């Protein structure tokens, strides 16, 4: 178990109160009709699985029930940064373009 900072409640809470919702910053295509099957398939099903920094969407489901973003190191589990939806991460690995 580890503590996660909720940017809406403004305090750390147990991991038990949260759920991870997968990769963050996935923009829905503006015009899905114009996509090829491969592009649509990539949008719908294909996710990053990095070794190292990963930007994830989390939800404080037992608390304020708000979504927010977490930048986490998948090797060490260390949370580098927590930021609200709509904001951009300040901790970015060189290989990772958000």
């Amino acid at each position: 178990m580890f503590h996660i900072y909720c940017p809406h409640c403004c305090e750390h809470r147990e991991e038990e109160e949260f759920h991870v919702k997968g990769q963050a910053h996935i923009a829905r295509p503006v015009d899905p009709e114009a996509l090829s099957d491969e592009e649509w398939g990539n949008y719908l099903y294909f996710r990053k699985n990095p070794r190292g920094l990963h930007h994830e969407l989390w939800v404080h489901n037992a608390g304020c029930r708000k979504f927010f973003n977490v930048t986490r190191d998948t090797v060490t589990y260390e949370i580098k940064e927590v930021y609200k939806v709509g904001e951009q991460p300040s901790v970015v690995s060189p290989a990772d373009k958000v």
Partner: protein
Amino acid sequence: MSETNSAVAIMNQVPGSDADVRGESPLHHVGLADITDQSNGDAGVVFSEAGLLGHLTLRCEPSSPLIAVAQTILGIALPLTPLTSVEQGDLVVRWIAPDEWLISLPNDQVFDLETRFRAEMNGHHSLVNGSGGMTVYKLRGRHVVDMLKKSTPVDLHDSEFPVGKVVSTVFAKSGAVIRRTGESEFELVVRRSFADYIWLWIQDASQEYGLAVAS
């Protein structure tokens, strides 16, 4: 969204005194009145249920001008600081999320308050009467923090959890909105469907400290 304020049909959920209906709280089957023990002064945890209260969930953007309207209707300002609550007489307003508050007050005042909100709040907001879905447990006693520590992962130390603080969190295998109402006094808002489970859990967790039921 429509700007009209009469589109929502509301009804008084509390039956009139002439109706042949008896209100039953979620712990009605326990018969708390029969096991109330006024003499048990040694009990480390004292439990009581504040059943059949009225609960309104208000949702509104904190930057909206409607916040001021809500303040006029309630007579107190909505708590905008995270994890805080305000109280005035029988009225309690708890911060749940940046755009959500839980308003509790006596059952017979809910319909009037809801009617006022419908009439005076023009704009983007939501008000839901969840009175039947929740109940309130009041816990006090010198071992109340010890009992709660077994049940929830939040930090209950005085420095982290002062009087007036409110958190929505996990409680046992369920959830609760926990508010500190005094030095060794807490209040839990729990879902009706989990009321019996949490009552059984509290009995078990309080066993080593002694549990008394107050009216």
